[in-house]
């Protein structure tokens, strides 16, 4: 098996046994990126020279007997994470030439273990999208079928794993942007509880919803990466100060005796037949493993998408006000004064989806509409959160589909933003409630596209969903399947 086909835990065992060097591993991935990325477009920036230097430093560290779980492991990051000295674009023309002046905490924690940065990954501009088509650097393509989207907004992160261009990546999840692309690309995607991972140095889209998480080949790697990035950060006032469990140790506890809820609002008419079949088979697998199922209700699910698009866009309109062409980012030429400079710079720098969301958020926050839209949405958010609190009184976790359909075709939904927004119906409620969720490979469509299942846990219940995901993974082989490239 090639080095680029392996997991973190496989590679780490070989590094520790001195059977392979980090330079060899890094070269394997760099060669893979070079030979495949023309057809996938997962990377915006490849940091080849620095990666090889960092790999050599990691080899020295290992030789000195100082080997952390991620030492010498090559990773790649969604281009929303600040990386000191490396271009960070957020897939926007606005930040085309932006060189980050410091590291995001999540990356700093991985880097401190001696991980190697392969490069920065494509995404929807400012993380706004469900398909990775809204990028100033062109769309990313799904490695399983290049006519299809990889999902969004962390589409580059998921596609890079599916194309075996990186062993692990970090993404961000505001309304499903880790879980949905992981599902569409046949990877594991973990959205931790809000506050579990620092957002410091992550370019903000919707601050009360954004959360950082790993996209990996298997559940063990997701647990390893979460262990590395989780925990309180004084630089992020929204990060929660509570101990980080040993997630990898929790994996082997199994699901026997766990009670899993099936929310009836997630198994609806119109659910794709292949997705339904994959869910039925997953439920049967879990029954064999000793889990018990009960039907539960999350009665406000149908209101989640509308709630999300008011809250997220309101926060986005505020967050993106910082792009004014003065301190950083694109500046328009030949403008008539300061206000004109700001307006022209923003209009030239932002793409259509970003403009649409800023406008929607500005409208929802504007005088006369604030109570009717923004406050109303915040109240419905309370109801959605209460739904989950009530459900978790009787079950340990919830099982749902990740998306109503497998990955759709590139261009299929670009003309109708509302239809695009509705494709996130099963992931959005999780962000509004702030709970944790994981997407795990669980099947394939009749045309060979991956299908994921979603497991949802209580706040800070990552151990439970990871152990349930791991048990499923051990009982099936969906995570071992590879896209032909």
């Amino acid at each position: 098996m090639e080095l680029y086909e392996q997991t973190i835990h496989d590679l780490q065992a070989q590094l520790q046994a001195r059977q392979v060097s980090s330079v060899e591993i890094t070269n394997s991935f760099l060669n893979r990126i070079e030979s495949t990325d023309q057809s996938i477009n997962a990377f915006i920036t490849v940091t080849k020279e620095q990666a090889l230097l960092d790999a050599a430093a990691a080899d020295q560290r290992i030789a000195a007997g100082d080997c952390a779980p991620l030492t010498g492991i090559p990773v790649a990051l969604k281009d929303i994470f600040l990386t000191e000295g490396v271009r960070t674009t957020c897939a926007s023309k606005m930040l085309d030439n932006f060189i980050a002046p410091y590291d995001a905490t999540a990356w700093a924690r991985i880097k401190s273990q001696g991980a190697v940065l392969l490069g920065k990954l494509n995404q929807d501009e400012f993380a706004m999208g469900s398909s990775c088509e809204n990028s100033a650097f062109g769309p990313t393509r799904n490695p399983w079928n290049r006519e299809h989207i990889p999902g969004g907004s962390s589409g580059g992160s998921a596609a890079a794993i599916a194309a075996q261009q990186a062993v692990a990546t970090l993404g961000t999840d505001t309304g499903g942007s880790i879980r949905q692309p992981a599902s569409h690309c046949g990877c594991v995607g973990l959205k931790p509880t809000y506050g579990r991972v620092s957002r410091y140095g992550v370019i903000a889209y919707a601050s009360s919803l954004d959360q950082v998480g790993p996209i990996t080949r298997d559940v063990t790697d997701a647990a390893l990466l979460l262990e590395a990035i989780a925990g309180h950060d004084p630089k992020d006032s929204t990060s929660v100060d509570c101990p980080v469990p040993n997630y990898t140790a929790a994996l082997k506890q199994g699901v026997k005796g766990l009670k899993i809820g099936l929310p009836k609002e997630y198994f609806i008419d119109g659910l794709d037949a292949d997705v339904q079949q994959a869910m039925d088979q997953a439920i049967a697998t879990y029954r064999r493993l000793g889990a018990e199922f009960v039907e539960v209700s999350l009665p406000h699910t149908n209101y989640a998408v509308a709630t999300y698009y008011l809250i997220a866009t309101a926060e986005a309109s505020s967050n993106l006000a910082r792009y004014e062409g003065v301190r950083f980012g694109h500046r328009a030429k030949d403008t008539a004064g300061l206000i004109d400079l700001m307006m022209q710079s923003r209009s030239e720098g932002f793409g259509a989806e970003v403009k649409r969301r800023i406008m929607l958020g500005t409208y929802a926050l504007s005088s006369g509409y604030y109570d009717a839209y923004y406050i109303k949405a915040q109240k419905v958010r309370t109801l959605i959160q209460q739904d989950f609190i009530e459900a978790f009184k009787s079950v340990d976790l919830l099982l749902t589909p990740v998306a109503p359909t497998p990955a759709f075709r590139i261009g299929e939904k670009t003309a109708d933003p509302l239809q695009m927004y509705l494709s996130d119906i099963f992931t959005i409620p999780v962000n509004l409630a702030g709970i944790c969720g994981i997407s795990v490979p669980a099947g394939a469509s009749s045309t060979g596209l991956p299908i994921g299942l979603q497991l949802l846990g209580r706040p800070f219940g990552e151990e439970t969903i990871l152990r349930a995901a791991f048990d499923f993974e051990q009982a099936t082989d969906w995570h071992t399947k590879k896209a032909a490239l």
Partner: protein
Amino acid sequence: MSINQHEIEHVAKLARLTLRDDEKQLFTGQMEAILAYVETLNELNTEGIAPTSHAVPMENAFRPDCVTPSIGHDRALANAPDKNETYFRVPPVIE
């Protein structure tokens, strides 16, 4: 909820955006469809429900009131589109 092109122009101005004519036309139709969809929230009675602005309980996080190292002039100005030695340079506001 109907929204016309005049309102789109007003919202764009509030958002500090300049829209082309084709963008105004496109966004008017799309915003109208999206706003009609979010009207479904009015089916719910939210009387007496407290709004949630954050998923986890939040309190102001105060740091100690002491001076700490900052990013510094050089790094703060490194990405500026236009600058002099210590300042961001902008077009004149008052002629």
